[in-house]
């Protein structure tokens, strides 16, 4: 997760400690030597969903799937996560609000010392439900909207989903619950970015997370934008962020799921603000640590299977019914975990000698697997130019980044 608003405009935010290890003091110049030690855990509390989104990585369905963790087993999982020192548990799905015990589990998680946050389609967020979740200790609700009304409703397979999600966000904001947008960049949604941000800032939303598509579940390569269009979309989001900040509206904008963005932001900062700013951006991103799969983010699915990321549902490291989460996550005998954590030294092709491999770590290994069938191949959605990739460090070469 890369914060454009932090890197380009110095906006401090609550989650910065997990992205830049700046939790102790939100000083924009602070750089710490150690990366986040324990993963943020996404828990797909259910596979059941009331929508049918085209690119759902969890391949969620209307029916409740067999093997879902019971309330007691879910509390056991939360015990494991707290004991291991996990900082944040993200209740996700499917649609987590379909679990009738969600408030109870959020309450339990926060009592155990976990920061509880929610990923939801927003359509089931009523004022009463929000109030009870907030009372239980929920810190944040990320609501998925993908495009303007018509685009979103077609994407989600339900007319009225957009309006229902906006009502859900309004319910959160009215209650004073920190709320943000989750937005997946696809061919269909990329043109709608500015319109959705403008509309939701009017509603009161000030945090916008833009996700690149990873290739899991119904998220398949054919649905993705081209690398060139991705680059254009990222640049437009940078410009949008700058425009808001220049008129005094400090929105928070973040990019998730493609660490070519890290290199792009260094180059963008160099081009727009000069080498000193670019150097500062790069140092932040060195601490950030690049693609987090298998290291700073983990996933536990609705059956208790542990995955290297939430998108990587086709391979499980183990199951929490058999072993505690911490034992699975620290099992050094697993060669895949080792390979993910040894990056960038084991990358091949253009990633192997890329000047930004330290802050990108090869991007998505899942996309490399999905397209190239090779765990160490380049991320097919890297959009950096050859000149950018061969840049050894942040120096003012006198040229433009997009040569």
């Amino acid at each position, binding site marked *: 997760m890369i914060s454009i608003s932090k890197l380009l405009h110095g906006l401090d935010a609550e989650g910065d400690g997990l992205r830049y290890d700046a939790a102790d003091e939100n000083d924009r110049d602070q750089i710490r030597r150690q990366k986040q030690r324990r993963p943020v855990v996404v828990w797909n509390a259910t596979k059941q969903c009331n929508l049918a989104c085209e690119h759902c990585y969890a391949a969620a369905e209307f029916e409740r799937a067999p093997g879902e963790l*019971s309330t007691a*087993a879910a509390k*056991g999982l939360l*015990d494991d996560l707290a004991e291991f020192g996990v900082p944040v548990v993200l209740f996700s799905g499917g649609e987590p609000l379909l*679990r009738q015990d969600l408030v109870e589990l959020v309450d339990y998680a926060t009592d155990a010392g976990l920061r509880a946050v929610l990923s939801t389609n927003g359509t089931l967020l009523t004022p009463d439900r929000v109030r009870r979740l907030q009372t239980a200790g929920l810190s944040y609700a990320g609501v998925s909207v993908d495009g303007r009304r018509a685009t979103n409703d077609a994407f989600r397979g339900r007319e009225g989903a957009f309006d229902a999600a906006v009502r859900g966000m309004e319910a959160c904001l009215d209650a004073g619950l920190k709320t943000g947008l989750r937005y997946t960049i696809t061919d269909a949604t990329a043109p709608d970015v500015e319109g959705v941000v403008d509309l939701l800032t009017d509603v009161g939303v000030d945090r916008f997370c833009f996700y690149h598509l990873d290739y899991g579940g119904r998220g398949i390569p054919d649905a993705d934008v081209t690398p060139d269009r991705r680059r254009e979309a990222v640049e437009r989001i940078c410009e949008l962020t700058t425009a808001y900040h220049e008129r005094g509206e400090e929105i928070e904008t973040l990019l998730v799921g493609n660490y070519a963005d890290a290199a792009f932001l260094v180059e963008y900062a160099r081009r727009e603000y000069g080498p000193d700013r670019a150097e500062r951006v790069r140092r932040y991103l060195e601490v950030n640590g690049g693609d987090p799969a298998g290291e700073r983010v983990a996933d536990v699915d609705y059956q208790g299977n542990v995955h290297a990321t939430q998108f990587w549902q086709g391979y499980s490291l183990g199951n929490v*019914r*058999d072993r505690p989460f911490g034992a699975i996550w620290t099992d050094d*005998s697993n*060669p895949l975990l080792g390979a993910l954590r040894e990056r960038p030294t084991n990358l091949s092709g253009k990633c192997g000698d890329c000047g930004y491999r330290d802050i990108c770590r090869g991007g998505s290994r899942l996309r490399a697997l999905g397209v190239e069938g090779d*765990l160490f191949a380049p991320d097919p959605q890297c959009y950096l130019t050859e000149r950018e990739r061969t840049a050894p460090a942040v120096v003012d070469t006198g040229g433009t980044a997009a040569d």
Partner: protein
Amino acid sequence: MTDDGTTESTTDDWHRVDAPRADGSREWEVFLRDAPDDELTHAGSVSAPSADLAHEQATTLFGHAAATIWLCPTDETRRFSRRRLGAAHDDTDGQTPDRPTPAGGDAA
């Protein structure tokens, strides 16, 4: 099967963990050996509809680190553990076993 996904065993302290692990496709437990004198170790599981595709997936993930790959269908594997996830917690309230399906639901 109990609510926590285990079945009582006749042996003290041991429980069979028989909650499903497969999701849509068949699941295969993966066992690896790096060198002939190394131990065979469990390395998780892959989802695949057939043994051949499971082998292909496992080779893609672990071919760089293994000389031997064994695959075992998860639904043919009996898992026993002294661990019972959530045993300390009461399951009498909260999540109900059969909640209604939201199809046609309430998004609008």
